Structures are given as structure tokens and as C-alpha cells.
């Protein structure tokens, strides 16, 4: 299906896409009021419905919608060009047409390149390596090209004994989920309710993560509930009364 007859049902316009385009060009529909996202959605829905992608049509659609989007953004941001260049709608329409004409120049240039490549594929160039004897400078013409210091430095670097690998950042977890479970149960038993931040105060990130894991275990087992009003707000943990004595 050609893009032109894509059926649109928008707030300010019902009908085929090419009519919308025409009306925009004739300033009978205000581009500012056209919801272009809806146009895109309609096109995507159409693609899903037919289950086939006509590349020609898709390209045409993309070019048109991109041109409309640019025009609209210019209309919405008058003077955004910096030189007091205000776009009257009819100028915008001319710009759209000019854009389509410019694009058509390069689309045809692309066709030319296609054809050119096709006629050229018969010519092959040699890609054999240079004969071995020519891969080195001959002794008679050789001139100094390198600094001997480079060799000294390379050997000096190789004499350096590399420092032993630092594995400290790979420290094994010092706490286990089991330990943190015990700790959280202790807090629940003694206080019935506590803030998560308190439970992990002063501990490293790994311990914090394992504590959170332990908390999830408690929740899963039905021993505790937790509450957080909004992301990054404090987490409050409470014992579940029914299981509290277990």
C-alpha cells in the first residue's frame, strides 16, 4: 500500500495521509495541532496489520514524517534559528517541498552509483602481497630510521618484575546470608520493628546487599513485612504478628 493512502484518525483530521500533507501545505490544517506521534502509531499499526514491510513505502513515510516533524519543531520554536528567522507556514511548506526535491537529487545520484558499481564489478584488482625480496629495505640504501634508545628502554621494561596481583578488591564476603538472617531475627524479636538503615549502619556495601537478601528471605518465609513509601525513602521492617512467636 502506498503511504499516501494510509488512513488516519486524528483529533484534528480524519482521512488519508496525502490529504493531510496537502492540507498542511495549503495551511488548511495547522501543523501545530497535528499529533504526529499518532500518525507514526497509525503507520506502525498498519505495518503490524499487513505483516509486511514495503521498504520503498517505509522510506517515503520516514522522509515525510521527518520533514513534518522538523517543520513542526520550527513552528513551535520561532526564532530558534538565531537570526530572527521566523517561519511563516507557507515558507515552511516551501521548505518541505525544497527538502523533498533535494532528497530526490541524492536518491537519483544513489541510483547512478548503483548502476556504476554494477558495470564495474567485472574489473578486479590484484591483491597479491609484494614479493618477499621487496618487503625489506636493501642494505645499500638503508638509512637510520630508529633510535637505539628504543631497544634499551624495551629491555629495561622487560627487566621489571611485575608487582604481585592485588586481589584485595576481590575480598571474600565476610558475612553469610545465614549470619544476617540470624541478626535480623534478633532485631525483630527484641524490637518488633526497625529501620533497615539502622540494621546496616556502618557496614560495607557487600554486607548491606547480603542483609537486603536476608530480608527478602524473611519476607518470603512470612516472618517480616517491610514498607517503603517512595524510592530511596527509609525502609521500615516489622515482624509479622502471626509468625512473631515462631
Amino acid at each position, binding site marked *: 500500500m502506498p503511504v499516501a493512502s494510509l488512513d488516519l484518525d486524528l483529533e484534528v483530521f480524519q482521512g488519508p495521509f*496525502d490529504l493531510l500533507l496537502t492540507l498542511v*501545505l495549503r495551511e488548511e490544517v495547522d501543523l501545530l495541532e497535528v499529533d504526529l506521534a499518532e500518525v507514526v502509531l497509525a503507520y506502525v499499526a498498519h505495518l503490524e496489520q499487513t505483516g509486511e514491510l514495503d521498504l520503498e513505502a517505509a522510506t517515503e513515510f520516514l522522509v515525510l514524517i521527518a520533514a513534518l516533524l522538523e517543520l513542526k519543531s520550527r513552528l513551535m520554536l520561532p526564532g530558534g534559528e538565531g537570526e530572527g528567522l521566523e517561519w511563516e507556514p507557507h515558507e515552511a511548506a516551501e521548505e518541505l517541498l525544497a527538502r523533498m526535491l533535494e532528497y530526490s537529487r541524492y536518491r537519483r545520484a*544513489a541510483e547512478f552509483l548503483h548502476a556504476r*558499481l554494477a558495470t*564495474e*564489478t567485472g574489473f578486479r584488482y590484484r591483491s597479491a602481497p609484494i614479493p618477499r625480496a621487496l618487503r625489506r629495505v636493501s642494505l645499500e640504501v638503508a638509512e637510520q630510521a630508529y633510535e637505539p634508545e628504543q631497544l634499551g628502554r624495551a629491555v629495561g621494561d622487560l627487566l621489571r618484575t611485575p608487582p604481585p596481583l592485588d586481589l584485595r578488591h576481590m575480598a571474600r564476603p565476610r558475612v553469610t546470608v545465614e549470619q544476617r538472617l540470624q541478626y535480623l531475627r534478633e532485631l525483630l524479636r527484641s524490637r518488633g520493628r526497625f529501620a533497615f538503615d539502622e540494621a546496616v549502619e556502618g557496614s560495607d556495601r557487600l554486607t548491606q546487599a547480603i542483609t537486603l537478601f536476608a530480608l527478602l528471605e524473611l519476607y518470603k518465609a512470612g516472618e517480616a513485612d517491610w514498607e517503603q513509601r517512595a524510592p530511596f525513602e527509609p525502609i521500615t521492617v516489622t515482624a509479622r504478628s502471626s509468625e512473631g512467636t515462631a
Partner: protein
Amino acid sequence: MNELARIVEALLFLSPEPLSASELADAAEVGEGEVVEALARLREHYADGFRGVVLREVAGGFTLATDPVAERAARRLLARPRTPPLTQAQAECLAITAYLQPVSRPEIARIRGVASESAVGTLLERGLIEEAGRSRFGAILYRTTDLFQKLFGLSGLDALPDPAGFDPSPEEAGELRERLLRAGEQRAGAG
């Protein structure tokens, strides 16, 4: 064939890239005029349609290439096509780069009306275009490579046809606008 022509032939055979007359003159330790003469002699030997190898002028230099007469056999021998064809998007990006170089990706996208990252990426990967510094807004600029000229058989960028020749005629442009308006009127009238 005199000695200089023989030397020039050998150099063209060995060099992986096209060679200019001045490069050939330097290597052979003779004047450029003599090289030009030698090339003319060579051209007689490599007249189109008589040999399996032809002398071509591409990418600002001279190079030897096989005649298309051998394409089928060459494909069987080397078991690979020479150049994969270009997609429409790649051909458009390449055309824009060829004519407007140096040109930035946003500029390419503006003309085509769509983001062109993947096509530009493929062209870069295939060595048809390369980076050429940055625009004053910081965008990377692109230009075509010698490989582009070689694969498209262009002796230089000035061998590209005048792009104005690709423009729709004023009549066609007028028609395009008319057609849009007319279609709108018909539908408006019908609806």
C-alpha cells in the same frame, strides 16, 4: 615496448594501489613527461578487448585490472564475489558524501530525512568512506576514500557526473507540487 615502459608495467603490476605519473617517475628516476609517454605505449598494449588485463585510470593514478571477460572464471577461481552490492540507504549516504564532502552525519540525516547511523557505519567498515576531521560544531566529518574511486572506476572525484543532472526538471518539480494539491482537492471535494 622500451625499457621504461617495461619498468612502468612491472611497477603497476606490483603496487597494491594506483600509482600517479609522478610516483612512477620518482621510482624510475626519469622525468614525468617520459613516464606519460611510456604510459601511452602501455595503453596500446593493453587496448580494451584484446587482453585479459587492462590499464585503468582510477583514484588519481594508474593501475592494472582484469577485464570483465574473465569475471565468471575469476569468481570460480577465488570463490567469492568481488563487491557485495550496496543497499539503498548505503547508496544514498555514499552519494551524499561523494558530492558534499566533507559532510557530517547529521547533515546526511537531514538530507535523507532519517537517522543514517547504520548505513554510515557499514560504509566506514567497508572502507568506502573515512573520517575527515570535525565540523565547527564538533560533528565528525566524512569523505570518500581512494577505495571508493577504485571500486566505482572513477579517475577522480571530478569524474562524478554533475549532480544538477539528477534534479527533477522544473516541470517535474511543479508537477510534484500540483499533484499534492490536486489530490488534496479531490479528496476534500469527495469528503
